[in-house]
């Protein structure tokens, strides 16, 4: 069973296309926003290619995943990429969400960042996209680490791009926490290499199974699993490690917030999924009791993230804390430690990657309508000034609350269904219910705030603001995606489940 030649090369082409775009951007002319247009074009090409890869893998005989040796040397000697349905779906989702975040915030990026910096900003965005794709496709734990480094540096710099005291402070906090995470991951990779003698994921898995069966080196293995999970959890803002997130995501420019919240966190979470399924295997995870830890932390995050969001008056910080809660949902799915749970978690990754950028983009549009003030009190009635942003915010908020028909409903119902097979059903259902109520407690007042206006705002006596076409198109696309995910999620979930089954 093989795939067509083009489909076979797509993982490699996607990563290299984004890398080359990043490399040539600094020497391109800065006029006419050429660097940003180049990023958008490349992301569009990657999206189309990933779509084709999904199609090719979906229509191939049987469920297949293929390995792509990067170079002339076969598996344990050279580097390797691996692609299956799950990776293809994620790559498609990442590229689409990033493309829409960039185009949606085309104007606000220009307002926040001077032209000289924007070219470098695009370099970093392209590198982020490349590193996310590489984290998705890499089948080698050290390659993943290299791209984690690129991801970390680029992510911290896109926070600091808006040159104000608060963003620099937020970026420094983010950098320090991220580096602690990277350090833990690197220590753990060294330990794992010492125990298994491999960096490639499948040979590592065989060796780990052997070690666990013989009862050898169990303690170092547990420590390395704990360290790498903790390191990646810090980077993906799992609750007790997430205090850097609201500053970083709340104070940076809108495009950065959208990409960081929607995508960068997900890259690291997907690496945890990869570790659990491909390197350790679900049985070993259960034997080392990591799934329980993840489950408890996930439930805590779901509740505490929302509790913190309730206290916020700044709309962007509120959305940022809501990301912490949403990351908790993903970890809850992971903690169920079953194929259904992990598929639901992956569906939530996709849903959140499509909804959170929309919320940040709309929040940016709404605050632009209120003289760039971000407090909920200042946003009263802004819905009527920028209706596109208002619609986007309402759709995003409904989705986050899990109203049927919107995207958030899809993943919440999948998580609920997945928890029926788990012994932790009561806890998981209680956490889902409580967290949904808490979500509503802060999204509903925010919606009421933007929909409650003075007469002059409703009847259009205010100064008109010009809403750029790119903003309208992106919000429209985001809303369409939102409804698509909410109404037609079953085929997607089936696709993801097939992907998870052959992931290991």
């Amino acid at each position: 069973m093989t795939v067509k030649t083009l489909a076979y090369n797509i993982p490699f082409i996607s990563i290299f296309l984004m890398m080359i775009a990043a490399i040539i951007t600094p020497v391109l002319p800065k006029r006419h926003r050429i660097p940003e247009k180049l990023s958008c074009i490349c992301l569009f090409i990657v999206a189309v290619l990933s779509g084709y890869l999904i199609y090719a893998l979906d229509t191939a005989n049987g469920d297949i995943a293929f390995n792509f040796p990067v170079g002339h040397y076969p598996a344990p000697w050279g580097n390797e990429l691996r692609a299956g349905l799950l990776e293809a779906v994620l790559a498609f989702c990442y590229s689409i969400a990033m493309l829409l975040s960039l185009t949606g915030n085309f104007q606000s990026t220009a307002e926040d960042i001077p032209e000289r910096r924007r070219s470098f900003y695009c370099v970093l965005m392209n590198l982020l996209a490349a590193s996310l794709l590489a984290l998705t496709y890499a089948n080698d734990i050290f390659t993943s680490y290299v791209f984690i480094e690129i991801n970390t540096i680029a992510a911290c710099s896109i926070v600091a791009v808006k040159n104000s005291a608060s963003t620099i402070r937020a970026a420094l906090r983010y950098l320090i926490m991220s580096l602690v995470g990277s350090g833990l991951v690197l220590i753990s990779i060294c330990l794992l290499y010492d125990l298994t003698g491999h960096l490639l994921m499948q040979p590592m898995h065989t060796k780990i199974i052997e070690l666990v069966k013989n009862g050898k080196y169990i303690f170092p293995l547990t420590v390395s699993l704990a360290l790498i999970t903790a390191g990646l959890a810090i980077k993906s803002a799992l609750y007790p490690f997430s205090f850097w997130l609201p500053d970083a995501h709340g104070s940076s420019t809108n495009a950065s917030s959208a990409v960081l919240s929607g995508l960068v966190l997900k890259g690291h979470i997907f690496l945890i999924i990869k570790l659990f399924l491909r390197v350790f295997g679900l049985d070993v995870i259960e034997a080392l009791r990591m799934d329980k830890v993840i489950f408890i932390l996930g439930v805590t995050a779901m509740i505490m993230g929302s509790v913190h969001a309730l206290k916020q008056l700044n709309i962007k910080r509120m959305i940022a804390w809501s990301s912490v809660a949403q990351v908790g949902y993903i970890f809850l799915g992971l903690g169920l430690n079953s194929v259904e749970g992990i598929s639901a978690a992956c569906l939530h990754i996709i849903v959140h990657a499509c909804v959170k950028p929309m919320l940040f983009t709309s929040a940016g549009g709404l605050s632009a309508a209120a003289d760039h003030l971000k407090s909920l009190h200042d946003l009263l009635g802004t819905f009527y000034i920028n209706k596109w942003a208002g619609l986007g915010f309402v759709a995003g908020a409904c989705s986050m609350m899990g109203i049927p028909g919107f995207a958030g409903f899809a993943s919440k119902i999948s998580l609920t269904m997945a928890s029926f097979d788990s012994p932790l059903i009561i806890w998981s259902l209680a956490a889902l219910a409580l967290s949904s109520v808490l979500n509503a407690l802060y999204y509903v007042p925010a919606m009421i705030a933007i929909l409650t206006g003075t007469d002059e705002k409703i009847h259009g006596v205010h100064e008109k603001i010009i809403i750029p076409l790119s903003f309208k198109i992106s919000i429209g696309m985001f809303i369409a995606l939102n409804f698509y995910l909410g109404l037609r999620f079953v085929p997607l979930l089936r696709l993801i489940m097939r992907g998870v089954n052959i992931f290991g």
Partner: protein
Amino acid sequence: MNDGLKKFLLDFYNWVTGNGARTENEDAMTELPPVLPFTMEPDKIQSRFHEKTLQERRKDWINLHGLSVFSILYRSFSIITCVVIVGLLLITVSELPPFGDENNPANNEVIDRYIKLGGNETGAQNIVAGMILDYRAFDTFGESAVLFTGAVSVLMILSAARRKNDEPKNKLHSGFNDRNFLKRAPPIHELKDDDAILRGVASLSIPAIILMGCVVIINGHLTPGGGFSGGAVLSTALILCANAYGFKKVHEFFNERTYIFSSSSALLIYALSKGYSFFTGANHIESGIPIGTIGNIFSAGLILPLNICVGIIVAGTLYGVYALFSEGEI
């Protein structure tokens, strides 16, 4: 319920809500509550003595002691965390396979092939160069991109901030301006007078250092060394030059434009040439890149040009980061 218990509960309730029994000589107590440091706004002057509620007492206590208690807790928790992690890691290391044992898991078929066949397959006499630039060249590409990312980030944050400060200042925005806070410190490397000793030594050693760097890079596939170490050597020549003759002298031949252009093109050459090799390798096509005779300068396929590319990136980036942090520009 017992009367005593009832009274106790009532007293406790009053203590919490602050509605305790009035003191008998209320008029005598005109003394105001003490003004505490760090209170946001002075309390309204109350004509009547007001017993504090539990919440107010807590707030006052936090205002008085909060910071010191927090810093004590913070320090002790960070020390405890460090000790626990260090202890955990030490125990883990003690349980790892013994160092240098031949039965270790790391001594497997992977290492075996690198050592036995590495020379013939990659054409590199230096096995390490063969490993990092041929077997695992994708990782090394990533590492060069990490350097590139770091340099671009520093350039974006520092260099652009400097340009903004050079603009004529708007009088309305004088004083603390949010955008202006990254004010550049006066350059410490401004030459005060002609440092004859430094210049003399520099003029003698810079050519030698450059030669040494080039040798390390070009012989990367033959002897220990390669792009990363050779590039670091080259960057020291640039840094020495900047210190002895001033950054202006270096600007004449190496400025931001040169840096961006050289790094981008070196990385692009790396990406395109290695991309071609990856692509042909994965699709099982002959790449047609000659390996040559082991031991010759022109051997080992792409390793020599890749080493040169990596050397250019490393040299430029290390000097660039040094110049950006000490001078604010490349």
